[in-house]
Each structure stands twice: as C-alpha cells, then as structure tokens.
C-alpha cells in the first residue's frame, strides 16, 4: 500500500545534488591546474 504522503527527505537530495558537481567541477579545475603547470604556467 502506498503512503498517503511521500516521506519528507528533500535535505538528502539537496546534499547529493551539491556533492556531485563539487567533486566533478573540483576534478576538472584540478586537471586544468595540472595542465597549466605542465605547460610552464601559461
């Protein structure tokens, strides 16, 4: 039987929707930094 109202757990979704891009954008930024360093800081 379905519950009358869906459970209130939006905070978990917000946390996941923040953590995922932080990891991915953080990795992209770190790669760009490593490329700049390898190319002599240009």
């Amino acid at each position, binding site marked *: 039987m379905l519950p009358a109202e869906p459970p209130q757990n939006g905070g*978990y979704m917000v946390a996941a929707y923040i953590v995922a891009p932080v990891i991915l954008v953080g990795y992209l930024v770190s790669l760009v930094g490593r490329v700049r360093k390898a*190319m002599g800081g240009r």
Partner: protein
Amino acid sequence: MTAGDAARTLTRRGVRVSVVALLGLAGVYVLALGYTPIEARQGVAQKIFYLHVPAAWSSLLAFSLVGITSALYLWLQDPRLDRFAAASAEVGVAFSAVMLTTGPIWAKPIWGTWWTWDARLTLTLFLFFLFIGYLALRASVHDPAERARFSAVVGILGMLLVPFIHLSVYLFRTLHPQPVVLKPSAPSLPPEMLRTLLISTLVFTLLYVGLVTLRYGLSLAEEARDEAADAAR
C-alpha cells in the same frame, strides 16, 4: 604537429566538451526537479537516482575501457593505449567518488543506514580502492615501459570485477535495487523518469569523454615537458 601542440589542442577540446557536459548537468537538474514526478514510497530522495546511476555507469564504462586498452597495450605495445588507460582510470575514480557519496546519501533515508556490507556495495568499494592502487602504482614506477606493463595487468584485473558488480544483485542476496534499464526485460520506470535517466546518462558519458580528452592531453603535456628537460641537460 609536436607533442606540445597536440597537448594544447586536446586539453582545449577536453575543457570545452567538459564545460558543455556540465551545462548539460544543470539541464538534468531542471528536468529532475521540475519534470519528473516524486516517487510515492521514497519521496524526493529518489531523485538522487538521476546522479547516482549515471555516475555508476560512467565509472564502470571507464574501468572497462581501462581493461580493454590495457589488454591491447600488452599486445600492441602502443603508448597511446597506455596513456588512454591512465586517463580513463583517473576519470573513473572521480566518477566512483560521485557514486560512492551519492549512494549512501540515498541509502540513509531509504534503508535507514548509510552503508551495508552487501555484495554490490562491497565489490564497488573494492573496485574503487583497486583503481586508487592502480594510480599509486603508476606514480611510483618511473620507467615508462615498466609502468605501462605493470599497470596494464592491474587494469585488466580491475575490469574483471565489472561484470560481477553488475550481476551481484542477481548472484547474492542484497539490499541494492535490481537494474531498471540494463536488464533482459523492458525498462521498469515511468516514461518521465526513464527519459531523465537516459539524458543524464548521456550527459555523464559526454563528461567522461571531455575529462578523458583533457587528462590524455595532460599526459602529452607532461611528456613534452620531461623530454624538453632531458634535452636541456
């Protein structure tokens, strides 16, 4: 074209593709929050699925390609295959980090616990650590041919875990939900959820392509720098 020019071209292309994919991810957020319905039993937390599943797909794709290119490297000895394997492994670890953080955030409200040592979760964590080890091995061996050979063997062993992880929900008693798309029968999702999931999977795959291109360009740039340093000695 010199190695330095090729590195510059690839890194620029990789950044462009990655930025487009991240804009696509913003579009996925709009779809997930505004278009897909709220699941009655799981509530809003179910929407974590649109990030967790594509991240899992991208990491398993990345590690499978590490294994395939590693096997091809052992056969053909082409350094481009080794460079690709290294790039794919590092990007796969980044996607695994997304999978291994969004998974427990979903599990806490749905299962009542952040983590359980069942087959799917344990094997996935083991694969993550195995590829951390792969990257550590690459960083510790300085001879390029030896590094490529040793890491190719680890990469192939890592790939062998991928089918076990996919099939673990059938082979073992597990809390983890069974596949809803990659299974013999038709996908068991409402059309709005399925569309959002497929679009998110495409966006994550595009991000994989962008990050691997950028990481491959980084390897070329580092090789060009090391060669220039050797020539100057």
